[in-house]
């Protein structure tokens, strides 16, 4: 009993409740048909959300105004350059991965440099730089869609005992993210900075080093996501990251991370990612028109947040 109560106090619970709720509603509507299949799809697509949301979560936790709007462009650039470099050759798969991660590294470093050296507020720095990354992607390949190596495509779409391999991998990644957040100097530093950067500095936290690492982490994860998504969907497209701008933020905040900074959690990311995917699926299944669907999407997101507000720590 008290265990249940304690569970309900966890900030991430409501995202999971929401996910279960919309999944249940979908299943009820179809009389249970395809419920398992839907879940499998949710795990696959949710995994991509979680990858980028993990990075976004660390950024958002740095405190008010910190957000990475360059994730979509970074995904596109990393996906495009990696696919073109691999040119479909299986032997090049590791090289492609390194390139995607390397692009993330560069993007994150540039973002941080803009924030630190030019003192541009992160939200605008990452938005502005994202246009440059997008242009670089266009210039690199002019929108041509190069196929991923077959082995990469197979890996991203494979299943073990019916569970998507990509979801398993991202689950491991999420555990690593959780450990990083709660059990390392870096993670504690991020949370401290998010509450009070000045106090963090005076408590001996390496404020700027951690900020730099966080923007680099976010971009690197975006690069990874771009690489895997391009493998999964048969090539990199110039608009492949578009959707991930708002969703990465939505997943983070619906998952119970405080937008005021200084408080984050990883389990909520998976809950929120599944919730967002299943929500769209539910409304598609109900056959609602675009207008009604959008209105309901908005209202349900707000509903979950209101329900969760009873448990949220005051900021």
């Amino acid at each position, binding site marked *: 009993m008290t265990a249940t109560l304690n569970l309900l106090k966890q900030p991430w619970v409501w995202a999971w409740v929401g996910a279960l709720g919309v999944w249940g509603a979908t299943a009820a509507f179809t009389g249970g048909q395809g419920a398992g299949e839907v879940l499998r799809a949710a795990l696959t697509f949710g995994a991509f959300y979680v990858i980028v949301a993990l990075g976004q979560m660390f950024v958002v936790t740095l405190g008010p105004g910190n957000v990475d709007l360059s994730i979509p462009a970074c995904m596109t650039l990393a996906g495009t350059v990696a696919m073109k470099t691999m040119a479909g050759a299986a032997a090049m798969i590791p090289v492609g991965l390194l390139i995607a991660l390397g692009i993330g590294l560069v993007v994150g470093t540039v973002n941080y440099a803009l924030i630190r050296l030019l003192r541009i507020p992160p939200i605008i720095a990452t938005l502005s730089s994202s246009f440059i990354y997008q242009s670089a992607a266009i210039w690199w390949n002019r929108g041509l869609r190069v196929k991923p190596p077959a082995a990469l495509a197979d890996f991203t779409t494979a299943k073990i005992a019916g569970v998507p391999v990509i979801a398993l991998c991202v689950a491991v990644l999420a555990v690593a993210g959780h*450990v990083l957040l*709660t*059990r*390392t*100097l870096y993670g*504690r530093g991020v*949370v*401290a900075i998010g*509450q*009070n950067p*000045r*106090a*963090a500095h*005076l*408590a*001996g*936290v390496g404020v700027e080093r951690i900020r730099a690492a966080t923007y680099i982490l976010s971009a690197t994860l975006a690069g990874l996501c771009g690489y895997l998504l391009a493998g999964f969907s048969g090539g990199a497209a110039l608009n492949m990251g578009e959707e991930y701008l708002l969703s990465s933020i939505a997943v983070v905040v619906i998952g119970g991370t*405080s937008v005021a900074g*200084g*408080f984050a959690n990883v389990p909520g990311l998976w809950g929120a990612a599944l919730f967002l995917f299943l929500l769209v699926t539910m409304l598609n299944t109900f056959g609602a028109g675009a207008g009604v669907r959008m209105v309901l999407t908005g209202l349900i997101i707000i509903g979950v947040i209101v329900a969760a507000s009873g448990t949220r*720590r005051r*900021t």
Partner: protein
Amino acid sequence: MADDATPVVRLDGVEKSFGAVHALTGVTLALAPGQCLGLVGHNGAGKSTLMNVLSGNLAPDAGRIEVGGTDLTRGYAPHVALAHGVRCVYQEGSLCPNLTVAENARISHKAISGPGWRRRARALIGGRLDEIFPGHGISSDDIVGDLSIARRQMVEIARAFAETDTPARVVILDEPTSSLDSVAAGKLLAHVRRHVEGGGACVLISHLLGEILDTADRIAVMRDGGVVALDAATAFDRGKLVAAMGSVAEAAPRETAQTAAIRDHAPVVVEASPPGPDSLALTAHRGEVVGLAGLSGQGQTELLVQIFDHRPGTVVDGEVAMVAGDRQSDGVFPLWSIAENIAIGSLRQFLSGPLLDHGRARAFAEEWRGRIGIRTPDIGNPILSLSGGNQQKALFARALGSTAAIIAMDDPMRGVDVGTKQEVYAMIRAETAKGRTFLWYTTEMDELVHCDHVYVFREGAIVADLARAEMTEERVLHASFREDA
């Protein structure tokens, strides 16, 4: 003062609990016009809580509130309190940092509105500042966030005493001098006397017992949520107050001869100069307690930060830990528990491999709670559930518990009660014996006797360099003011 006059304020059987913490256990207290009531008690005794009830910010769980003879218990709220002339200067500060001094005056004086309000607000706050703190150097158009903590405190005090359509019948001052230097504090206390002699009433909370004994007409001593002694000020002396609060005896400062020996023999660990013109340099030796004195806001904090940051031009041999004085903006992590707030300064100690061992961190915090006496049922509670003084203790624990060889303290005793202060003095002594060095900025003259060497600051420069043997209150004060002033 006669007890039979109708009290301006009467609290009767006031109780307040925060979860398991009984902050107030049935307090009954009356305040007569023309009277200054001194309120003392250990950290967490319930003083601020009581004043929050009186100013309408906390609804009591039980009890009655009477103002001017009327029972206002039902529906009592800040605006009701204000309308009845109850003003409060809060321990944690209540100014809007984004507004100017004059605009902040407008916030708490609703009557200042309509055309020409800005002029009236300037006149109101400027007049009070001139009256209470002559030579304050604050312009009514200064943005509050740009002011030092001491000047912010002055603005807040002046605002509370300012009168528009409602008189300031009762002014509550919750540790008003903790961020002021002794000169400014003296001015304030003189004003308090003027205020009560003009028929007003005041509640003065302070851990500086001398202030209370000198200024108050009556003194109430609180302990663990209740009033344990209440009498005319003349009936108390320092010893009696300390005894009533349940505090321990005082720590003795180090012998003068001993301090000189450190200067001569121990290696130098810090050498730094503030940027001000013609400044002397500060030198600290291993195991020494070096005092940074002078009026508040003369560059002491900046020099500490300069040393903390190992800025170019400073010689710092060893790690530095900081005890913040402005705990709101420099010290506390508001979303974290007490334990997390303590442990953040020492995380490296709890690493096993690359990962933190939370169990060890918690045990560490638990140990320091005991050593420094943080009053809380559970160190897993949020830091903000602590009283101001207890939060400060947590910051001490953070620095003392770290491995740093040099501890920089930025006027760290703000809001710390006498008993704890003595314990901390003793602890500092003990730590110096282990070779730790302390750089201690303080605005309290009494604390300088615990320093082995004192540097006096004025306008961003060090203007006097006093060894323990040559340090007197008079010399410090003399150096604090410009010759030609």
